């Protein structure tokens, strides 16, 4: 099993942690995509059996290290939060099919909500490197949950929304998706809670902007063998289940079906 060393772990908000660890693969040689995920074992023992999927937030190819930002909510992520520099953690990945930049695009929109925000950092950096201009619309519950704002500020324009108005504008991310904001946007990329993705999908359809959604389903193996994490998509009028861990987690927005 691929075991790697934790380089750093720090608290970045109430119940929120940022962990940096060695990559289990050579990033330069094997490559990776923004939007992929890492599958971490919370413990060496078998009491907390399954791995925890955490999205790749930042990849440092030169030092071959990866960063995840996650919420310590359940038993497993709470155990992960106790790891410190020098500790060993069992990591699979990066796994799955991530965000793909589309050639010819000049301006992209990132829409992130809560703990769905992290994977958009690496994507935003990548799009910027491709020469695109990027605008990010980020939504959080409140100020104590707001994360990665410095990183997004360096990527391009940024609009912050919060449920209670303690940071940015009060309201939902879809409230910020106005004609002005969407002007010249060729494509959007979104990750966040399912109700948000649903609303973003509907809004962007109205504005006729194509894009991608990163989905979340309860996952078992992370490599496509348990068929636990399927999501319904529609391709050429045909409804089918696809594996979020293998074919996803990122899908074209127009294909994603929310029941």
């Amino acid at each position, binding site marked *: *099993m691929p075991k790697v060393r934790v380089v750093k772990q720090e608290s970045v908000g109430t119940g929120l942690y940022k962990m940096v660890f060695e990559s289990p693969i050579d990033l330069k040689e094997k490559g990776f995509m923004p939007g992929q995920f890492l599958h971490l*074992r919370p413990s060496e023992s*078998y*009491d*907390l*059996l*399954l*791995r925890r999927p955490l999205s790749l937030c930042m990849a440092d190819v030169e030092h071959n290290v990866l960063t995840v930002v996650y919420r310590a909510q359940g038993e*497993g992520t709470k155990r992960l939060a106790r790891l410190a520099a020098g500790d060993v953690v*069992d990591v*699979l990945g990066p796994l799955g099919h991530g965000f793909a930049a589309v050639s010819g695009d000049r301006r992209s929109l990132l829409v992130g909500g809560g703990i769905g925000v992290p994977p958009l950092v690496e994507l935003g950096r990548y799009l910027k490197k491709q020469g695109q201009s990027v605008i990010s619309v980020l939504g959080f519950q409140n100020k104590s949950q707001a994360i990665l704002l410095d990183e997004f500020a360096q990527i391009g324009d940024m609009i912050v929304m919060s449920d209670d108005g303690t940071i940015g504008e009060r309201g939902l991310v879809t409230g910020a998706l106005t004609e002005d904001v969407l002007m010249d946007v060729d494509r959007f990329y979104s990750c966040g809670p399912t109700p948000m993705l649903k609303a973003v999908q509907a809004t962007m359809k109205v504005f006729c902007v194509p894009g991608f959604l990163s989905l979340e*389903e*309860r*996952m*078992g*193996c992370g*490599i*496509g*063998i*348990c*068929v*636990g*994490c*399927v*999501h319904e998509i529609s391709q050429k009028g045909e409804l*089918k*289940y696809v594996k979020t861990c*293998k074919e996803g987690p990122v899908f074209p927005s127009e294909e994603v079906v929310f*029941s």
Partner: protein
Amino acid sequence: MIINSEDVDLSLDLFSRRFKNPVMPASGCFSFGREVSMLYDLNLLGAIVVKATTLTERLGNKTPRVAETPSGMLNAIGLQNPGVQRVMEEELPYLRRFDDLPVIVNVAGTAIEDYVEVVKALRDSPDVFAIELNISCPNVKCGGIQFGTDPLVAQEMVRAIKAVASVPVIVKLSPNVTDIVSMALACEEAGADALSLINTVVGMQIDVEKRRPLLANTSGGLSGPAIRPIAVRMVYEVSSRVKVPVIGIGGIMTGRDVVEFMMAGATAVQVGTANFVDPWSCPRIISELAQWCADHGVSRVTDLVGAAKQ
């Protein structure tokens, strides 16, 4: 006696074929082998049991389909598979590249006639070494479990399958019965060539925030180390009463766990949930088994079978 782990004989004979070791991935826990074959050479396995196959395509249940439980997990996948024709055309031929890998196809359905049709179709495939009859899936309405809880119905099923099968038939038993020994005896009498046990234990988890069952299917099958003692007890009891080989299944995570099942009377074992935790589980378990035998002066793994009963 000190021996090296490389010198331990892990092989066994099953259905007149030599298996290089007693460890095979369990149905539904390895898909059709493709994904894991990217990680290691499947020739290392004793055999492979591929995902349950039905007559026609099944989309499976809605999500959530999986949930973690203490030392285990619940699943309610709902037998998602592309149907027997596509399994024969698109999945099984892929496994031909592994020259020493007996392929066991798990067969499921909702009526005896469906099972018979699947088994008849599989006669045309050169890739099938044996069939595992899934009369114990708890996760679909009429998903086979009704055949696995009534000895007379099970017997009728096994007879119908034996009448058309061209390969050995393993019957996979459900633990969700009052008396698994009578189920085992009924299947053996009807002609089962081997028995595999146990399938998952029916369980349930409530999402207390939402005040609803967590799984979309309401209930699911419990697997993992949590069920191992149940499985060991059932293997012990069944293998004490039947003459056909018993394949042990239930929460095997390490080589030590294989030893436990073999001492309880299993001739071979299947590894399920462990593959989800660590995709390299099977080869690791095989080398741990060899090491355990070496450390304990056991030169042939078959010497362990039923050792706890002597």
